[in-house]
């Protein structure tokens, strides 16, 4: 299939409401309100549409749901699941905070790494977790992502990464900051080996992650409506005492300014990514 076909937004709900898994609405089924169009959507219908509203609004998605959506069924093998944050600076409240987040999210850290196949082609995959301290990057996130790029160099695999992050994890101080340099060097190692790295920026991708591996991919994609930027909007308003332009730091704004290759709706991502892997010499395993 030609890549051009993906550029047209496809929304199966708008094409007569048929989805790959047709759903009937039960009376009294729980609904979620869309912050964009304000409609209430039955949860089952939202799930059947990968958490995308019929208006195009993309709800946040947990890392493991995203992996289920992107990877071929049963192909994901997790790596580095035992690497997780300690409290290296004895930062006040950090230990309790992280324990609470762990039990609430079911994750040990803010990124899930592993290998998978997409359309039968093998790749390394990392997916950041918005439900874990808003994907903040500390030593463990940096170590896991760095290790994944090194693994990809060793086994000559492409890397696909989904980013979501509020930035560096301040409770790990300078050690967090240094993860930007560490991951960047690993991305460079992978790039110098002639291997492909595709980043998909999801809402929100900001701070130290934007200023490192999110912006270092060969091909940078973004989900519609995602906030992508370096500084926080409120900080910019306070610094400049100016009101921000409409759509500031949304993926459409970032595309217009030349910093992402394309905006790809969630429902098209798997085919789009599989096509890109194929065009970069991906082979069926």
């Amino acid at each position: 299939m030609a890549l051009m076909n993906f550029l047209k937004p496809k929304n199966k709900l708008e094409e007569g409401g048929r989805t790959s898994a047709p759903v009937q609405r039960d009376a009294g089924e729980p609904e979620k309100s869309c912050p964009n169009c304000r409609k209430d959507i039955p949860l089952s219908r939202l799930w059947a549409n990968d958490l995308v509203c019929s208006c195009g609004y993309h709800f946040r998605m947990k890392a493991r749901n995203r992996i289920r959506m992107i990877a071929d069924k049963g192909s994901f093998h997790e790596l580095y699941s035992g690497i997780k944050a300690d409290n290296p600076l004895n930062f006040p409240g950090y230990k309790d905070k992280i324990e609470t987040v762990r039990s609430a999210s079911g994750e040990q850290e803010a990124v899930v790494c592993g290998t998978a196949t997409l359309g039968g082609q093998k790749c390394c995959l990392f997916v950041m977790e918005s439900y874990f301290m808003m994907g903040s990057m500390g030593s463990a996130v940096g170590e896991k992502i760095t290790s994944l790029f090194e693994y990809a160099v060793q086994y000559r695999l492409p890397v696909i990464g989904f980013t979501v992050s509020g930035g560096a994890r301040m409770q790990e101080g300078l050690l967090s900051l240094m993860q930007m340099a560490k991951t960047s060097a690993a991305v460079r190692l992978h790039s110098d080996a002639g291997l492909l790295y595709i980043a998909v920026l999801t809402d929100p991708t900001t701070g130290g992650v934007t200023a490192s591996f999110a912006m270092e991919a060969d091909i940078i994609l973004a989900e519609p409506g995602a906030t992508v930027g370096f500084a926080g909007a409120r900080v910019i308003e306070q610094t400049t005492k100016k009101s921000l332009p409409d759509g500031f730091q949304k993926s459409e704004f970032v595309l217009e300014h030349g910093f992402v290759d394309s905006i790809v709706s969630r429902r098209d991502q798997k085919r789009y990514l599989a096509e890109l892997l194929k065009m970069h010499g991906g082979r069926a395993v």
Partner: protein
Amino acid sequence: MSEAAYDRVKLARSSNRPTGLDYIKNIFRGFIEFHGDRRYADDPAIVGGIASLNGSPVTVIAIEKGHTAKERTLRNFGAPNPEGYRKALRLMKQAEKFGRPIICFIDTSGAYCGIGAEERGQGQAIAENLTEMSTLCVPVISVLIGEGGSGGALALAVADRVWMLQNAVYSVISPEGCASILWKDAAKAQTAAESLKLTAEDAKSLGVIERILSEKDIGQKEFYDRIRTLLIREIDVLTNDLDLVGHRYDRFRNIGVSAVIKE
């Protein structure tokens, strides 16, 4: 105890401290400044060019805050825009081409948080410096002389050696920003400063920097002479390193490894 760290922050921010240009003028000879990123503009917050150190050409880059109110406004208070980082990278690639060591002086509260900065890709500019600096095949030494504000400082500090002045600070976020996010109270900046471990001693014990530079006679001839001697000696060591890029990779690769739990 908590006042000590925050006192360092105040000292690091003091307008009485020597700025980037003072270091350039007093340590090197015959500085020739080069302007512009060749893409958009020249950023006055970052100064760069070539100079002579012990008779050999080096590339020097400094974030400049300025001394007077007028200078500080002109220099955007040392908060670089993307074009500043791109100018710095252009000069670093030029240094690599001609085999010159690179010396950076860092003093910034952070990369500028502005509308134009975002439109022109502040995050992308910093990210590109991080990847490119990681494989520069000439020696790089970065010296934090005042504030080392987050990614905006790191963008000039992917170096073989990172040194800090005794009262410089290096942090992932300002203590005020940290306090207002975590505790919704900017007045808790003292606690934040202490908790962030941002002093030169902290940075050294975390393995983030190699050396703390004494501030004895700061701004005097003796002070600059001392730094010059150290730079000359260290560049000599780095020039003889046959695996400079590999060692630089390991330097950053190892940071934080012992700060995680591996099950």
